[in-house]
């Protein structure tokens, strides 16, 4: 072997031997990503709070947890599912009719998961906030309050849907999550946990926030009031209301008073303002989801939970979901002389269907803010008249559509994302009217009906004054409006209760809370079965509908979650 060959061999062996720093070669860092610890700077912690906020509106039409329309309105007898027929998003059909609702409907499981996803963003932000030094992050306490407010909100939604849920907070290590049962806390203790978050928020939030989207002290007080109001109605395991906790009601009253006393809020002079883009962050908005478009994000941060709820005309295109029930529309009838609701006979005869029906009968003006009627201007535009071709399958779901969530195609907030539509109009989580009526409800249940009366009348007065936009092209009123105030006389607790409940229905119709009100009051079963008995004569598909008392007040714990928990989670009563 000559020298040349030997040296070649040596070089070759050397080449093979180069383990020249494999570790260094293999150390490839992720691109466009940060590690957990990189997020612990005050700037990034602040952004994690934003990430938690953004989850408020990150929903989609088949699990619309912002507006809650299928859960609160369709299940509450105020709305039909709508859309292309009973099989179009059939999960909502089963929610609506209850009879065939199941433990393995994926939309229900998805709702559960999306809530915990939102909660995990809150817990992530809180974990970092708790650890940061207040001197390096002066906003620490405020941000903690905001995140606890947000977490309270998501747990509230979970609680009103599923009743018994596992409670996970930022102090728990991820590996311990699988050990937390949905029955670790009682019904009452779970409400208290949610209330604790809002109490903490009340304690640390300032009265005013310079950034309009952030929760402030009043918002936290209002949400705490709402939580305590729900908690006040104690419930058995079989979902029957067993009593009412006066001390909680007293606190509700106090909290509402604090919000009122802040002087920051009032009712918009026109009810319509609440449902127009121009009313975003107006005086009635206590806390709202901030949607946006043309905002530098790819498709805008718009309201996707409502994206099916538009008419079928060429300016929109799709999909005619969320149609008001005839029962709801009839409920807007008022007494021709007093202008008061017709508690007992609104639905016994004379359905409000055609435009002329609305002129022949006196109605609450809020009907034309809430319900699209053939021949009535859509969304306050006299030249944009709702036509019977704008509804998808009227033979199944009738000719009406919901209007509060939608915007005109010419509105600057309108966003078409074919085949659907959405908008950047804000969605109110709490508006001031809610605070007034929670206070009224607490007072009535505390047997202080007289104190509740002016609050209810305040709401009705505003409704009465809200006809300015309700005009046909020729300037005439769309409907025959007549709305009056409750007189002091005869405003007994029982009557006041009925008045309050009716007022909530009119004021918040199609805003996602009706079913939860019914369950809170403990009347969902009888109320809905009575509704089905009458409504099925108009809507044949309701003939199979039936509410099972003790079961249907809550969704079943999703089968998937029970399986994944290896049976740790216990199913709700009746399921």
């Amino acid at each position, binding site marked *: 072997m000559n020298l040349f060959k030997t040296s*070649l*061999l040596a070089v*070759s062996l050397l080449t*093979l031997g180069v*383990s020249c720093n*494999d570790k260094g*070669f*293999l150390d490839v860092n*992720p691109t*466009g990503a940060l590690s*957990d610890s990189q997020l612990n700077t005050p700037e990034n912690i602040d*952004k994690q709070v*934003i*990430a938690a906020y*953004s989850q408020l509106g990150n*929903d*989609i039409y088949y699990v619309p947890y912002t507006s809650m329309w299928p859960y609160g309105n369709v299940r509450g007898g105020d709305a039909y599912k709508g859309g*292309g027929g*009973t*099989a*179009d998003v*059939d999960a909502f059909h*089963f929610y609506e009719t209850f*009879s065939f609702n199941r*433990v393995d409907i994926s939309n229900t499981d998805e709702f*559960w998961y999306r809530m*915990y*996803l939102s*909660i*995990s963003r809150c817990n992530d932000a809180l974990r970092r906030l708790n650890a940061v030094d207040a001197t390096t992050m002066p906003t620490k306490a405020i941000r903690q309050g905001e995140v606890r407010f947000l977490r309270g909100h998501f747990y509230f939604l979970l609680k009103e849907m599923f009743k018994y849920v596992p409670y*996970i907070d930022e102090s728990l290590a*991820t590996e311990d*999550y699988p050990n*937390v049962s949905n029955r670790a806390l009682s019904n009452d203790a779970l409400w208290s946990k949610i209330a604790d978050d809002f109490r903490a928020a009340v304690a640390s939030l300032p009265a005013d926030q310079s950034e*309009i989207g952030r929760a402030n002290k009043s918002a936290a007080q209002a949400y705490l009031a709402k939580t305590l109001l729900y908690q006040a109605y104690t419930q058995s395991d079989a979902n029957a209301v067993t009593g009412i906790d006066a001390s909680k009601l007293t606190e509700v009253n106090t909290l509402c008073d604090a919000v009122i006393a802040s002087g920051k809020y009032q009712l918009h002079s026109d009810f319509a303002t609440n449902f127009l883009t121009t009313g*975003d*962050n107006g005086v009635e908005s206590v806390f709202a989801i*901030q949607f946006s478009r043309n905002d*530098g*994000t790819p498709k*805008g*941060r718009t309201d*996707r939970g409502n994206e099916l709820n538009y008419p*079928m005309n*060429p300016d929109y295109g*799709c999909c005619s979901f969320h149609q008001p029930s005839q029962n709801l529309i009839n409920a807007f009838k008022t007494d021709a002389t007093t202008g008061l609701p017709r508690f007992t006979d609104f639905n016994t005869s004379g359905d409000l269907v055609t435009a002329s029906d609305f002129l022949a009968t006196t109605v609450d003006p809020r009907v034309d803010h809430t319900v699209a009627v053939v021949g009535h201007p859509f969304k306050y535009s006299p030249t944009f008249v709702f036509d019977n071709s704008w509804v998808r399958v*009227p*033979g199944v779901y009738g000719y009406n559509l919901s209007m509060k969530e939608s915007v005109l195609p010419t509105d600057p907030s309108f966003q*078409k*994302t074919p*085949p659907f539509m959405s908008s950047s109009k804000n969605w109110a989580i709490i508006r001031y009217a809610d605070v007034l009526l929670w206070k009224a409800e607490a007072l009535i249940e505390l047997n202080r009906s007289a104190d509740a009366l002016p609050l209810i009348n305040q709401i009705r007065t505003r409704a009465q004054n809200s006809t300015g936009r309700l005009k046909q092209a020729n300037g005439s009123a769309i409907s025959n409006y007549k709305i009056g105030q409750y007189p002091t006389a005869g405003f007994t607790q029982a009557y006041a209760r009925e008045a309050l409940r009716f007022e909530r229905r009119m004021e918040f119709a199609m805003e996602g809370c009706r079913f939860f009100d019914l369950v809170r009051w403990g009347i969902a079963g009888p109320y809905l079965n009575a509704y089905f008995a009458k409504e099925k004569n108009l809507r*044949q*598909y309701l003939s199979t509908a039936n509410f099972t008392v003790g079961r249907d007040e809550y969704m079943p714990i999703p*089968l998937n*979650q*029970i*399986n*994944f*928990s*290896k049976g740790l989670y216990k199913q709700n009563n009746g399921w």
Partner: protein
Amino acid sequence: MRKSVLFARQLGLPALLAAAPLALVALPNVALAAGPKNTTRAYADITVTGQVNDEKGEGLPGVTVIVKGTTNGASTDATGKFTLTVSSTATLVLSSVGYVSQEVAVAGHSTLTVQLKPTTQDLNEVVVTGYQTQKRADLTGAVSVVKTDEVKGMTSNNVVNNLQGRVPGVQITTDGSPSGNNTAVRIRGFGTLGNNDPLYVIDGIPTKTGINQINQNDIESIQVLKDASAASIYGSRAGNGVIIITTRKAKKGVTRVDFSTFLSAQTPGPHIKMLNTQDYGRIYWQAATNDGVTPNIPFYSYQSHQGPAGQPVLDAVVVPEFLDAAKTQRTADTDWFKETQQTAFTQQYNVNVSNGGEHGGVLFSLNYYKNTGTLKYTGAERWTGRLNSDYSLLGDHLKIGQNLTVSKLQEAQFDLNLIRDRSSQLLNIVPVHTVDGIGWGGPVNGIGDRDNPVRLLTDNQQNRSDLYRLFGNAFADAEIIKGLHLRTSFGVDYSLYKYNELYKTFTAGYLSNANNRVTNNESTFGNWVWQNTLNYDLTLGGGNHTLSVLLGNERISYNQEAFYASRTNFASQDPNYIVLDAGSANKDNGGSATSYRLASYFAKVNYAFKDRYLLSGTIRRDGSSRFGSDNQFGIFPAVSGGWRISEENFLKNNATFVSDLKLRAGWGQTGNQDIANYASRAVYQSSLGTLDPNFAYDIGTAYDIYGNDTNLPAGYRRVQQANPNLKWETTTQTNVGADFGFLGNKLTGSVDYFVKNSTDILVNLPYLGVVGEGGDKFVNGASIQNKGWEFLLGYQNTLANGLSFNITGNLATFRNKLTYLPAEVINAYGGNGQDVTRLGHSINATYGYVADGLYQTAAEVAGGPTQVGAAPGRIRYKDLNGDGKIDNFDQTWITEGIPNFNYGLNLGASWKGFDVQVFFQGVQGIYAYNNSKFRTDFSSLASGENWGARLLDAWSPTNTGSGIPAPTLVNSNNEGRASTYFVENASYLKLRNVQLGYNLPTSLVSKIRLQNVRIYVQGQNFLIAKSKQFTGPDPEVTNYQYPVPHVFTTGLNVSF
């Protein structure tokens, strides 16, 4: 100048592309080829001119002709001719790879014609086994060699498609995609829960993708390394098996130009049958009537009367003249499948020029392929060029060379699922166009928001992507001392992807879009590979011991970068106008990057004693950037042995019918690292919003906290959890097998049995909801076992009359089961959440209910177990646990989803220039989940969409014999649930390929100075036999695939 003249004549063919570089390469060929011929004009007895032909009578180039007992010899030229000056009594030995060596006595003749017979399994055939080559006789692992001859002329754009059914243990599923990119290859079952694709090694360069960008005509050989003892030299990426592709090189002393072309017509294969306009109206009426509601659909009216029993009877379905009030859409009966499909044409032109000299050779090829696609406007075009060259220097002690291919694939970018879905969804009553013949028909009230598929295809026709790829390597191989080779190779595999998309404005029924949008996408991706190996071959002990040793290392670095930019509101949709600058609104852009690296060391020893006892061992150590820092490296060993019994005297002397018999056994481990690049890390990312949030959750982290639609701050979302312990998935495989040849290798074959255990399988599992966002985590989870048999048997013979024929059959089985699941994820794979899990079942198994026919009467319903939604005409589910109610606990494993066996049968014959080939392929005993029943059998699972024609025979009180549930509009009985209703016998046998070829007689073609002319006709997918139980059109086709076409081809091959 003979060849150049001819070449110029060939240029006249319209098919030839890019003639100039071809001519350049062709010219020096003449000089090189002429050289050796003139050198043997020395003193000798006689000059023999010979012609060597193959079994088809075609001139065989590159045959070594040696005077027996001397070193005097020559090679045949491109036409199979040789000239040699020898003693008149000499004997010539003719040998060539792939052919039986033959001795011919000169016996004073000055001209000789010899025909060589091919060997089906030439034991001296050189097989590429990973960083080295071995003789087939010395192989100890399970290696299948595919004969490219059998698949040449097949029209697919993806060479892998043509292997379907030809290699036992290799399962290939494909569709009719024009670019050939929808092919799945599974070697020996399903070994992992993620990516089951094998590793491809092309001329030594590993890749996982893009085999459809390789020109099939460039391929010399394909080898499949199935077992671990063969594949473990590729360690970390060999868990799913390895397919080695070697491209053609110029053969020494051969100058040859091959031209081939084919043209085929493809007609779309079968699809599911939907209801026509009248029948949809009828079924809708029936469904509503069954539900007890008044049929109410805006565009149908009904005439009916009460029957004798009070039941409604339909007299007529009345279809209006127009669908819409504006009278723009005239009602129609549109067959959307027919409207979206067409007869496709495929054409290919290939020129291959090779020039092999004494000290090197060059091969150059150009290929053009075009397939217009059986779906309108979905065609693909591909250009490939290849240059393979090598040069020997320093007295042949140093060889340098390169293999390089460049390709451009242009294909339509369209959403296949969407097109096929819409074709089955949009009602036939919708016209293709509005009455003006220009506007688009589309859904109206009562019809779901399903777009017109013809519009989708037509408006998308300008949206074509270009994928450019540079793939190849440069290498140097030095022989340091005899038998010791040092080789270094630097390979590249880089692609550039460009795609400009125009999303047009449109109106189709109530669907419309007023703002057009242009999005430009660009990405570059690929890797370099640097390999260094030392190979040492030596023979000791007087030839009794042969030893080869391989040492090597390899580094791979992969990078990918992508970005897009888009704008909306373009004043014109003219292709020349739609540059981004012309858009006036919504400027948007985005981008991403990712990378991974691999560092590996490997060694292999092959030892043979007296060519009888064979032993082989490999070990490989791999490091991957994808794993946790503590577990980046994995070690993959393998050993195997072989015993060539046929070399033993006791067999040689006593059983002469045995030509070859070898027993093999091997054990080894391979790895899998096919997971996300940063799988071991906790990753947080910012996301302004979701690109298409219509059908997916918005995962955005930005929020308009200022309430003014500007300057949205954005946080970070957790994408996945960290797992610093993440390590390789390991597959341990044991293989025993035998190769045999009987009766002078007329009957040959092999048998293999394998057991393959995959452990620490990398999975990203679904998790408990409370874990929340980014709960995803890659873990080393399950274990899977595959085991099975593989058989290959071939017979070939040539009769005295010159008829030669061959029959090759193969059959393979595998069984698959999950053998281990970590406790925390055991319920993530199905089961009832308690005692029933997937353990012991196949990963293809389906868990579900047992459909037990239909309820016939209300009394039956009342007497049956509690089943939410039960009613006459509805599916009855079995109460498996007998607790009186149908729930989660009444499910079981309803099919394993694994066939009893897969098989293929190839018949070939040739006689006097004619050759014929017939190929069958089949799958037997598979019970598949037929998802298309979802569309064809139910009117309740999709509303506002078309339903299957099978519903015309659905159950009714007067048609109680039907197994199809009664039409209903509401799915109260949850009949879409996983159940045996959807499980069907999907066995099939297909006539994949029939080919008839004719080689023009040499006497004729030589007059026009050509070497060989072959013409052929071919048919693909002409016949299918399927189980009667299968209700779909073709078990191989789902509604979402590109239609598998029937293909008729004519082709021409010319060599000169």
